[in-house]
């Protein structure tokens, strides 16, 4: 293989986030409409490598991916050693708005997966005017706890091993091995207690069931894409959101909970018509 660089730029952004100085790792590629991407709980922006490297996307979109504080190459704020990390709906919404403002993005498209797919519903509810369009991957109004998350953060259980073990079945059984294990590797590298802290939002604080009916996809176009093998954010949950909001929903065959990293090529086939529709304002022919 001849050596080559990817057309992706990674930089550290210094700014005040949630009232504290932060050093946030941000990657981007492409030009055009800003597409701000949100990773899943306990993982990081590497999940969007497929998009960042796809010229079909980057010729019209400036794809921007940031690692949330505590995740990936974004460190926790100073003093982290004396607190338990716990993501709340309020902080998550503020984080996205503050990152968008710090990057001076003009009405970006925001796209998030899992916890990101949930928080974009909060954005659609509270701040639809700030976004050109909203894309929820693996979105559902709520997920009740179905295992004891304390197993994810205790010194006598390896956090990386157990986090990957918990989520392994959320990857579609049909996913290629490389995408499956790349996705799990990100989970294996998560910091202690970070996945558990994100799940506080996912399973407790981020429940938006009682506000779904107040979301109006006419105020900001809302697209939902969910893998058929996702048993956490179920296809039923996604279709319920679509029915109650007027969002456009697609169930993706042969994909699971991590479509952008478990099988990027297949996922991008579903995403391209959505991005084309957002860009042109006209429905694209199926990919």
């Amino acid at each position, binding site marked *: 293989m001849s050596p080559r660089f990817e057309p992706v730029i990674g930089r550290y952004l210094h700014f005040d986030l949630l009232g504290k100085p932060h050093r946030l790792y941000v990657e981007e590629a492409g030009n055009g409409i800003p597409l701000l991407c949100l990773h899943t709980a306990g993982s990081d922006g590497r999940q969007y490598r497929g998009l960042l490297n796809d010229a079909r996307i980057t010729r019209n979109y400036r794809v921007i991916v940031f690692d949330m504080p505590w995740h990936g190459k974004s460190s926790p704020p100073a003093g982290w050693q004396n607190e338990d990390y716990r993501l709340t709906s309020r902080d998550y919404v503020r984080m996205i708005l503050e990152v968008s403002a710090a990057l001076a993005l003009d009405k970006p498209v925001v796209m998030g997966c899992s916890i990101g797919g949930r928080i974009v519903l909060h954005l659609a509810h509270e701040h639809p005017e700030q976004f050109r369009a909203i894309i929820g991957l693996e979105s559902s109004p709520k997920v009740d706890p179905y295992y004891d998350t304390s197993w994810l953060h205790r010194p006598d259980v390896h956090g990386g*091993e157990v986090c990957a*073990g918990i989520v*392994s079945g959320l990857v579609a059984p049909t996913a290629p091995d490389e995408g499956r294990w790349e996705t799990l590797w990100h989970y294996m590298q998560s910091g202690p207690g970070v996945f558990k802290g994100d799940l506080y939002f996912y399973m407790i604080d981020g429940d938006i069931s009682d506000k779904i009916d107040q979301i109006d996809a006419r105020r900001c176009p809302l697209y939902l894409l969910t893998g*058929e*093998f996702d*048993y956490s954010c179920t296809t039923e949950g996604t279709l319920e959101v679509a029915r109650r909001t007027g969002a456009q929903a697609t169930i993706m065959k042969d994909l699971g909970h991590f479509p952008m990293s478990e099988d990027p090529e297949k996922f991008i086939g579903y995403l391209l018509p959505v991005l084309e529709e957002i860009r042109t304002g006209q429905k694209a022919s199926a990919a």
Partner: protein
Amino acid sequence: MLENLAARVNADAHLVRRGRTVNTTFLIAIDEADHLVRVAEGRIVEIKPGPFITPNYSFAFRASRDSWDKLWSPQPIPGFTDIFALVKKKLLRIEGDLHPLMTHLLYFKGVLGAAGKAAS
């Protein structure tokens, strides 16, 4: 359903390596039929069918035959592709001392996956 499980697991060098520090006995219940599975250094050394009077094991997986059939279906069925999918639907109960399971979760999922291959 578990006839060829030991041979399948023990023939999978990658799975045995993943479980090289696993030494425990766990229980698989299919309907009311209990099976004690003894693991030593990642290899299955004994599968003992019940009934038992005082079974001694660290943790148990209990589900109906229908649920196991769905988990082990050669054609993956959405909503039935993982033990936690079944737990979420309240079709599988995981009980006992979960520490050995949680410390080696990918290994035990691999073992149950091999049971699916054995069943097909």
